[in-house]
């Protein structure tokens, strides 16, 4: 058994020189030192680098003689066994010793020099996953550009270049800005839902918060709660956080905490705008005087606890031009100009009742509704009309017409009355028998008598009617006109007694009128039958009160609106009936508790 050492070199010209030598021994040493069997003049090689022994098992035991290891098939080892059958490659410095077995059984060790390629490290980049995936940078660019273009550049550009679309409550006109729906932080409230795809109807100018004028362009008849300066003065101080936010926001042109959007925050989902909570009102009203020293409004924060006595509006003197507000706690004496003892009419055994029973139109004792009819909104009542409400009993029949029907005195104007009475006294008499007359003889029924006879009953009738005990004074107060002639006191009622609150009779159908209005006991028309705070409180307590069968927790908004229609004190009719203010008490889910929030997120 021998080793065949085959050294393969290349001349500068590239010619291959193969030198073979056979070493007939079982041990080889390889190293830089000349005395080695295989001498490798390479500094990377130790003097005596490795020893190769031919073992009994016909394999080669290779081990490093020094501290440095050697490369075997790419691994750096200090000891190894090579089976010549499969072979192996030993790396020492730049030399590669390929071990293999010749067919004649000899072991060939072929020595080659490999040129060191410094670029090898580059191949390592293949280990990085990056070599198999789209680059992070590319993806980043794609994503970023897509988002910026689609969700920022596009809307902004189209907003700058558009011809603004008109705000259109009907929702027929879509906005001209593209893709800005992606900016909407939530659906609009029910009332505004029609504007859903027309952002610019509210968001008019870029980087400008929604302006009040924009709101008012539709909500024209919204009255101010009070004049801005007074509101500002009356407002409680803001929390630091809010104060700061507003400071900044106002710096950017947002209208302060009195602007519409301050309270009416939109994009909160398709819900109805909720009226302010009791706290919302009481923030200011519980101690308004401390800030707004000249206000007449007394402190109010909880209907059950702190709420001023009602102060109805009424006419304190006959024929006054303006009604007056009752002083708190006073018993107002109303000068309506009527004579109307409610007790007489309401007494179920009284004459009025009997008469009503006898009349086909009633057939039962009188009730409130026989005279009083509620207005459409069930807030107040229509004026009582004599013809419908009173005439059944208080008849004005004055005789029969030639046609045979009953003739009536007309109601409402003294002048008409006077005419009607006069007609009664001059009416032609029917003939008793066919009259025969000599020529030249004047009959009593001739126009002559009527025209030239002296006045008799007619004149007496009108003065009787207007004077005390006369037919008119059953209900009206007699008085004298400017020229001293007999006349009646004009009837004078306010349109509404409680003006700054709203009361829905519809919501109180369970109650009888007399539960609140003391009509049965009222003997005089001068009694003002408005219920007082106490009577309301029997059922209504503050928002914080516990709801029972009887007790209704009532926050401010149940009776009061924030935006009162303008000019309430003047022309006594509201421009348009405000929405019914009765609303169910807020359900707890709306409260902003963490628990609630979590409850929402956790699926």
């Amino acid at each position, binding site marked *: 058994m021998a080793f065949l050492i085959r050294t393969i070199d290349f001349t500068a010209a590239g010619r291959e020189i193969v030198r073979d030598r056979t070493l007939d021994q079982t041990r080889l040493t390889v190293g*830089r*030192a*000349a*005395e080695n069997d295989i001498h490798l*003049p*390479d*500094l990377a090689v130790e*003097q005596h680098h490795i020893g190769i022994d031919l073992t009994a098992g016909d394999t080669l035991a290779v081990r490093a003689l*020094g*501290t440095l290891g050697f490369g075997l098939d790419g691994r750096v080892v200090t000891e190894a066994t090579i089976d010549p059958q499969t072979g192996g490659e030993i790396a020492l410095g730049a030399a590669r010793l390929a071990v293999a077995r010749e067919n004649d059984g000899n072991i060939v060790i072929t020595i080659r020099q490999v040129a060191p390629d*410094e*670029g*090898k*490290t*580059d191949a390592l*980049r293949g280990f990085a996953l990056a070599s198999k995936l789209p*680059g992070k*940078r590319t993806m980043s660019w794609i994503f970023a550009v897509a988002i910026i273009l689609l969700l920022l550049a596009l809307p902004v550009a189209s907003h700058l270049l558009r011809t603004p679309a008109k705000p259109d409550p009907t929702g027929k006109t879509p906005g001209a800005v593209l893709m800005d729906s992606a900016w909407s932080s939530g659906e609009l409230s029910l009332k505004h839902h029609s504007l859903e795809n027309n952002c610019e109807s509210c968001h008019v100018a870029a980087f400008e918060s929604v302006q009040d004028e924009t709101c008012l362009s539709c909500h024209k008849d919204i009255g101010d709660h009070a004049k801005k300066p007074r509101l500002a003065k009356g407002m409680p101080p803001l929390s630091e956080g809010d104060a700061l936010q507003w400071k900044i926001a106002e710096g950017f042109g947002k209208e302060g905490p009195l602007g519409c959007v301050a309270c009416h925050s939109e994009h909160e989902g398709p819900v109805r705008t909720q009226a302010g909570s009791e706290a919302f009102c009481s923030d200011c009203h519980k101690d308004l005087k401390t800030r707004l020293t000249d206000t007449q409004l007394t402190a109010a924060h909880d209907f059950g606890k702190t709420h001023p006595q009602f102060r109805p509006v009424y006419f304190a003197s006959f024929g006054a031009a303006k009604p007056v507000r009752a002083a708190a706690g006073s018993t107002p004496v109303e000068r309506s100009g009527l004579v109307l003892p409610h007790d007489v009419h309401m007494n179920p055994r009284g004459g009025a009742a009997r008469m009503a029973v006898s009349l086909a139109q009633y057939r039962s004792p009188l009730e409130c509704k026989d005279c009083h009819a509620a207005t459409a909104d069930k807030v107040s009542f229509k004026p009582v009309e004599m013809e419908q409400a009173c005439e059944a009993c208080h008849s004005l029949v004055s005789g029969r017409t030639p046609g045979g029907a009953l003739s009536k005195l007309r109601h409402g104007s003294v002048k008409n009355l006077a005419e009607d009475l006069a007609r009664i006294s001059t009416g032609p008499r029917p003939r008793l028998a066919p009259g025969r007359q000599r020529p030249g003889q004047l009959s009593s029924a001739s126009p002559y008598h009527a025209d030239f006879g002296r006045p008799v009953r007619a004149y007496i009738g009108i003065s009787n009617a207007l004077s005390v005990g006369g037919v008119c004074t059953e209900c009206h107060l007699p008085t004298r006109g400017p020229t001293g002639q007999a006349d009646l006191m004009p009837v004078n009622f306010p349109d509404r007694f409680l003006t700054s609150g709203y009361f829905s009779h519809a919501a109180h159908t369970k109650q009888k009128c007399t539960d609140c209005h003391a009509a049965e006991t009222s003997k005089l028309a001068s009694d003002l039958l408005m219920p007082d705070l106490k009577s309301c409180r029997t059922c209504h307590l503050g928002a914080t009160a516990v709801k029972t069968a009887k007790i209704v927790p009532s926050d401010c908004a149940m009776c009061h609106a924030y935006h009162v229609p303008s000019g309430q004190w003047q022309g006594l009719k509201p421009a348009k009936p405000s929405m019914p203010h009765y609303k169910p008490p807020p359900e707890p889910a709306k409260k902003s508790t963490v628990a609630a929030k979590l409850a929402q997120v956790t699926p």
Partner: protein
Amino acid sequence: MSGIFKVAIIGSGPAGLSAAARAAALGLSHVLLEKTDHLSDTIYKYQKGKHVMATPSNLVLRSDIDFDAGKRETILGIWDEQIEGHKVNVKYHAEAKAIRGTGDAISGSVQQIVTRARDGTKNVTEIQRHAPPYAIDLTNGETVMAENVVLAIGTQGNPNLMRCPGADLPHVQYQLDDPTEYVDEHIVIVGTGDAGIENARGLAEDPAQRNTVSILNRGTDFPTAKAANVSALMADHEAGKLIVRTESETKEIEPGWITLATRDGEIRIPCDRIIARIGSAPPRAFVEQCGIEFTSEDRGAFPKLSPVFESTAPGIFVIGALAGYPLIKHCMNQGHDVVEFINGNRDLKPADEPILEQKFAGLPGGRSVADWLEFLRANVAILNGMSPLQMREFMLDSEVRAYQPGEVIFERNEPGSSLFGIASGSVAVEVNPADPTFTIPIEAGSIFGEVGLISGRRRGATIRAAEDTIVVEISRLAALKLQSQVSSAKAAIQRISIERQLLQMFGSGLTREDVAPLVEAARVEEKRAGEVVVAEGADDKDVFIIRRGSMVVEKEMGGRPVFLSYLPAGTYFGEMAVIDGSARTATVKAAIKSEVIRLPAQGFLDLLARKPAVRERAMKDMAARRATNAFIDSRKGEFFSAVDLYSQTAQFLVDNGIGEATDVLLIDEKLCIGCDNCEKACADSHDGLSRLDREAGKTYAHLHVPTSCRHCEHPHCMADCPPNAIKRGPDGEVFIDETCIGCGNCQRNCPYGVIRMDAKPPKKPSLLQWMLFGKGPGPGEASYSWRKKAAEKDGGQKAKQAIKCDMCSGIDGGPACVRACPTGAAIRVSPDKFLTFAKLTEDAG
């Protein structure tokens, strides 16, 4: 008899030639005596075509004949014709035999000649000096008379001989005339001076000769050789023409073989011829006979000379190699100067004056350069042996500084391998870090900082000037040179270092007197890596101090050795056995090639007996170690696995060179995600090339030692750096500065393969450009292809240079590799802190 010359110049070497030329130029009556038939025999004897160096380059040549680096032939040619030109009176075949003063005896001027026989006995003869004129007796019987004699005979007189067994064999020679005459031989050159290097190179020059040339270097540095020679040698070494064996010495010589002691143990290699070029001593006998006194009795000592080169014999001047100065340039300057002096030009300053002046500029006292040199030489003990000329040379790579009282000279734990000598004043050593008030004084004349010089460890104590003090800082290389030149200095340094080590051993309470006997008895021993110093169970009783290198302590447990602890240089061991007389409790062996100081047990015991305080201290230390052992022992019971792991990990780390490391990068592969960010960071912090290879290197128990610099205590890479470009920085880092010539020695010398040779790649596009547009190769080391392309774009690859870890010195925040590790896998540790049970089990377990 041709009358009396004004000046006779003996020896026509560069010095002699220059002197003669000057004399001729000045028109002095002169004669140049040359023993051969040609000028400048030394250089003449150089190999044909040898390249002659002109160092030091910063020194201006001041001579009437030209000299510049070049081929031997050219130089000799120039000199011949210029000597012609100057009409120098040359007398060939004139070998001086003796020089006698013919004037009347100079009273009280008696020359003592001490001759020392091999057996150590010495006999003293006395010679009465006589005034000039001198009679120079030539071997051919003639006599030349001269008022002044300039001795420029060089040192070829008697080369130093080898002293190992077999040194007297015929195939050991001290001279190589024609390297081309030897073929097909295994030749070993001993000594890495210029001569040795040139011989080696000459022999290996032509591959056709098939010589296997090895050159031996006792140490790892080349202190006595010219830089250019060294680099040329390494170039050949690299080219595989010859083999440089550093840290190896001849142990034995037999016909056909030589046995070398090397760092990795002894090796025996075939050797047909040994050429010893281990320097030469001056032809002392002759010189002394002339009435010239030497600085010391050392073989290496040089004549006592005045700053004007005048010897103790009035009118006899000594210059050149004989005066202790081997460099041609200096010799020629001296030749020029000495004649000027003789001619009465006394205030002529040597050529290197400006360089030195500048060095002494800042110092108080306003002495002249000459005075300063003398001042230092006279006051610093280890420098006494030097001649003014050597002092000049020596000062060129040393520094002198003045310190105010209390001013810090160096701080504890500051790295530094330079040696300090106290010229005046004294310094205080703060031996106890806890209380700086306790100090040990070191008086004028003595040295300090030797521990740093020897062990390569950080400074052991803070040293302040105790009063107004002037110290000379001797760079490591200068110190090595000094030791190789002035053997007395070497001895002194060794003695002091041992003494200090002893004093430091127990911190305080000892005086030099206490330890004096021990110091005398102490022996310094070299230990090879893995060599057992103390064997467990043995009952030898000596105490050891680790002078350099480091040791590991092992103990047999359950049949296998368990690593107990790691002992860095400066620690002592073996005291237990001495104190309690027990057998050795553990085995101590060298982790790397180390030096230990062996203290005989008896002396140590005496010391303890005399100093109870020290005994206390020793007991305390002992207790501490016992505790460690006991701890390991106890652990063994519960979780042997942990102990195993610890022991094996420690062993693994020591095997991977942690033993000699000062700061090594480890990677905890339980955390390493292989992102190579450490390498990238490294490349980006160091002009685009990574100095560490994360993956390469060994791993044990998920603790990975990557291929990156360990900043060894005695860096192998520093061993032979021709331009001296490898230095140790302020943070203890070993770094290569820009003067690297790319010879690749360090790469070869580093046993851990952490140094790579590569060209600095061109600048990369900014990071932003890469992040946004993928411009350039991105962070980290650019791919080879990119570097190649980019380099070609801006004009060709730069020259390859050696690059290695510099611990990111000067970079805020320290090593980038550690800082840039996202997971905290990369750590930098030092062995004596890290090789502890707690650490290793924590990290590896």
